[in-house]
């Protein structure tokens, strides 16, 4: 197994970090997952910019400075290979639909069902792995054909 999956959790609630760390410890301890935390969209984008290893962003919607729906739109500009999962209030269909249309990979409702979160992270991870394998064979193809690599980041096209 490679490095742990790095998940950026974005929420302005102060007890969010200890809760996630506690409930996900069975994934953190064996080195499956590694969590980083941000309080709002602006901080989240900063972290994404700094840390190229982040695989998945799980973000709340209502936050100060920059909300989760705006963050969703900004993520592909910073790192097109990242997948996003949105945290929404239970039954908040309007925001969920907006998030999905803006390219969220999936959504989770609050209060967080941690089994659902884990299942969703796993699905996202399988999806990302498949993408990366396919994209790396495309890169290998370009190299093997002896052509200069495209200046367009192929991952950007993978975004919805």
């Amino acid at each position: 197994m490679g490095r742990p999956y790095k998940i950026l959790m974005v929420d302005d609630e102060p007890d969010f970090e200890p809760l996630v760390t506690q409930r996900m410890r069975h994934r953190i301890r064996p080195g499956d997952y590694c969590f980083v935390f941000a309080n709002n969209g602006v901080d989240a984008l900063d972290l994404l910019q700094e840390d190229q290893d982040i695989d998945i962003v799980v973000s709340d919607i209502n936050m100060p400075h920059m909300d989760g729906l705006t963050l969703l739109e900004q993520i592909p500009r910073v790192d097109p290979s990242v997948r996003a999962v949105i945290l929404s209030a239970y039954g908040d269909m309007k925001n969920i639909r907006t998030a999905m249309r803006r390219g969220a990979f999936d959504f989770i409702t609050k209060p967080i069902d941690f089994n659902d979160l884990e299942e969703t992270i796993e699905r996202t991870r399988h999806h990302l792995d498949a993408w990366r394998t396919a994209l790396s064979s495309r890169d290998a193809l370009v190299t093997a054909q002896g052509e200069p690599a495209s200046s367009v980041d192929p991952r950007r096209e993978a975004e919805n």
Partner: protein
Amino acid sequence: MTVATSAMKRPYNILVVDDEPDLEPLIMQRMRRRIRRGTHSFEFANDGVEALEKLNDNPEIDMVITDINMPRMDGLTLLDQIPNVTDIDVRCIVVSAYGDMQNIRTAMNRGAFDFVTKPLDFEDLQITMERALRHLEEWRAALSSRDALVALQNELEVASSTQQSILPKTFPKSDEYQVFANMEPARNVGGDFYDVIRLESGKVGLAIADVSDKGVPAALFMMSSRTLLKGAAIGLAEPGEALREVNELLYEENETMMFVTVLYSIFDPASGTFTYSNGGHDAPVLVRAGGGAELLSLTGGVALGVAPDINFPSQTIQLDPGDTIVLYTDGVTEAMNGDGDQFGVERIQEVFEANPPTDSEQATHALFDAVREFVGDTPQSDDITCLVLRRAQDST
């Protein structure tokens, strides 16, 4: 991978699964523009069982839009079953009751791409549909690269063995002299080559060369360079003249703007003279029988294929019994270790100063071993080629 070309190919086949009879005319009506343009076509099934039958019959279905509550087999069970249908690659959209979070979450975790709610908002459905199809298109493009890569790798293997097969594998070994050479390509096919050409009066032509590029184009250029050089070598008695002719021929038909550096030499075992001419290649190393390794001076020629009417001066030196000439490509000198240091020409000299060559084959292996030890786990980035000529110790 362009989504824009979708209008030119077959329509997207969308299977709509719902037990409400009103849905079919409604979809056909709301999607009529897409259907008329030929970009989308719709099929209908009344429940999960019928949907699976249609999926089994038609591997060209791209998308499933399914209701959840249906007789015989519901939408959530259908989602579970779809991965068991072979030869299909579909995206699924689930239609759920508004706010039915539990079913929506189950559907998503069973692999639905997205969901829409009832009563159907056709704008949302269309956006969701297009997003899913775009996703599918991108995924298929990525998969086709993977397939193309496998196909190309198979072809490269054939190309590589063809290329390797034209490099001489048996070398002259007489009482007077021995030759040995080896090339290790960085990729399946390489741009380096060497050649050993038997000439009249017992002379032997020795060439080493490096094409500017890598991969298939370089391999093709290498093949034609090698053929031209062989032809010129047999016709012309002087290395510089042979390079001049090869340069003219390569330049005439060089639309790819590639070039090749060549060191071509002729050894005369009778006299022990070694005459060489350099077309932009690295200087040969001469290892003296009495010890010490020196770089031979360059002769001033440039790489072949770039410009016409170029002179390639030749130079002749005398090889004493036991003297060794080492020809190599920059894959040797520029081989890099984990710290980013290059092997360099001094290390070639050191290898042979520390262990004077006893035999051309042994000397070739010694150099390859030294390079391998130097680079360690660092991946090879260029072809590595070396050719060694040794005048026998007891030749007179």
